[in-house]
């Protein structure tokens, strides 16, 4: 008889220190040794992990009131603009924002050494941050400007809220043109001389729960070295599965919006990141526990790099011109081997997503659960799955 477990039963075992927790990689080995049914019976929780640049990230900061009061209209943190179009002393610092005096790509390719992601890392590292704000003045908020320093511990709230993280799957980027290009997928040499990819494959959270059977609104996760929660589906959440020769192939797929208290996170897991010729961003560490409620969930969680595929996309022509299609699929086993074959050509591959860090996240999360500190949450709402067939829209030009 196939196994069925509930969140309550698994949490009771976690509290009793008796839960069997393994990382997604360890589950793969276990399934190879004992078979899927036995592994599904034995294992209660599988931990996943990913550490990669995730541009749709940022933090809401509530800075505290000034004397006299001020309704901050524009705010800069270390020279990087934060969005202040919310209440008086609240602002949102976005990971991809750049200083106003940054030379950008005027000295091509621009270096983008400092941006919103770096501000977030400096904040979490407890470094002092220069705050500058201006205002137009009102009866209730008369003050017009301030320049001071803030630290994470001194401001009232700092809430990391990332509207799109943890892409289920992502393109493997190549360049078919005859010039070097600088993209958010790194530097791509002409004539497909290199290929870059950016998921942790068999450790990647959403690749291990592709039908969103367990990951939903309210799921408690490892976020930036602390505790976070899935807030909603992420933006551009288009979970889809294509069956080719009986093999499930995912596109970019689903995404997650995640939230958590920045004050309990760590600069090791929120790292300011710069892409030559492209911009600045934030690398985010995310780990998600998957409860093994039944054999089907175990089967997906045990998918190996050999069974997970990324589409190969030309970032020289096809991607910038929004031309659909790809140059075929390659497995994460091939991508991680260091070479792939596209159109008959052998290409060297590099990840942008750190595999050692992904492994560290999965194993940290495993320890937290084993210690009984971290219980699993049943989603309060499930997220759209491939079965919902969400279709992406693009912007229309004006008539």
């Amino acid at each position, binding site marked *: 008889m196939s196994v069925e477990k509930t969140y309550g039963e698994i949490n009771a075992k976690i509290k009793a220190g008796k839960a069997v927790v393994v990382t997604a990689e360890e589950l793969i080995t276990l399934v190879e040794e004992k078979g899927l049914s036995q592994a599904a019976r034995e294992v209660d929780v599988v931990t996943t992990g990913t550490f*990669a640049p995730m541009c749709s990230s940022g933090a809401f900061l509530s800075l505290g009131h000034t004397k006299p009061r001020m309704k901050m209209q524009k705010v800069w943190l270390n020279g990087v603009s934060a969005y202040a179009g919310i209440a008086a002393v609240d602002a949102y610092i976005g990971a991809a924002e750049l200083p106003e005096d940054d030379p950008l790509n005027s000295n091509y*390719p621009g270096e983008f050494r400092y941006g919103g992601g770096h501000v977030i890392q400096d904040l979490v590292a407890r470094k002092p941050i220069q705050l500058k704000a201006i205002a137009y003045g009102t009866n209730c908020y008369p003050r017009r400007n301030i320049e001071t320093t803030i630290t994470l511990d001194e401001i009232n709230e700092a809430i990391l809220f990332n509207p799109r993280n943890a892409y289920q799957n992502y393109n493997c980027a190549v360049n078919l043109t005859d010039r070097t290009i600088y993209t958010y997928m790194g530097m791509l040499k002409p004539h497909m001389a290199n290929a870059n990819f950016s998921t942790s494959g068999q450790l990647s959270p959403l690749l291990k729960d592709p039908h969103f059977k367990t990951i939903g609104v309210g799921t408690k996760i490892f976020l930036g070295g602390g505790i976070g929660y899935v807030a909603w589906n992420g933006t551009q959440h288009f979970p889809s599965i294509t069956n080719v020769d009986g093999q499930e192939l995912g596109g970019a797929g689903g995404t997650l919006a995640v939230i958590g208290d920045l004050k309990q996170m760590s600069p090791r897991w929120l790292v300011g990141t710069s892409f030559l010729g492209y911009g600045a961003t934030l690398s985010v560490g995310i780990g998600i526990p998957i409860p093994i409620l039944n054999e089907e969930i175990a089967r997906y969680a045990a998918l190996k790099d050999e069974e997970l595929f990324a589409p190969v996309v030309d970032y020289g022509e096809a991607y910038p011109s929004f031309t659909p299609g790809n140059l075929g699929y390659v497995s994460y086993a091939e991508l*991680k081997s260091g070479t792939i074959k596209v159109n008959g050509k052998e290409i060297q591959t590099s990840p942008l997503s750190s595999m050692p*860090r992904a492994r560290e996240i999965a194993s940290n999360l495993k320890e937290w659960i084993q210690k009984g500190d971290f219980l699993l949450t049943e989603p309060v709402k499930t997220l759209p799955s491939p079965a919902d067939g969400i279709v992406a829209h693009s912007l229309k030009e004006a008539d």
Partner: protein
Amino acid sequence: MSPKRIVLRFGTDISVKPVVYRLVKDYDLVVNIVKADVNPQKEGTMVLEVIGDQSDEGLTYLRDLGVSVQDLNQGIVRNEEKCVMCGACTGLCPTGALYMERPSMEVHFDGDQCIVCMLCTKVCPMRAMEVHL
């Protein structure tokens, strides 16, 4: 005898002088130019491998001319605190000095293979590769 791998940095005044010829002719050195960026209008750099009994004398000659001479592997260092071992550099490093160990996917840096092209200092998303002069 194993070759000395050195980086030369020099001003525009040196660019017009046949210094490599002098190393060969006056100090009897075998010189292999690994990389050179010589432009009479700006500061030049050259990466050399030199073999010969008088290599120390040859390098003293260069220093006396005002050329900065450094051991090659002192040029680029990895900031271990900053490196997250993503591997973005490994497909771009021209000599394989930055490489990935498999299956751990850990990134390693072999300073002996580095020719100080400095590409990694720009393409590393964490800016973990630093030039130490």
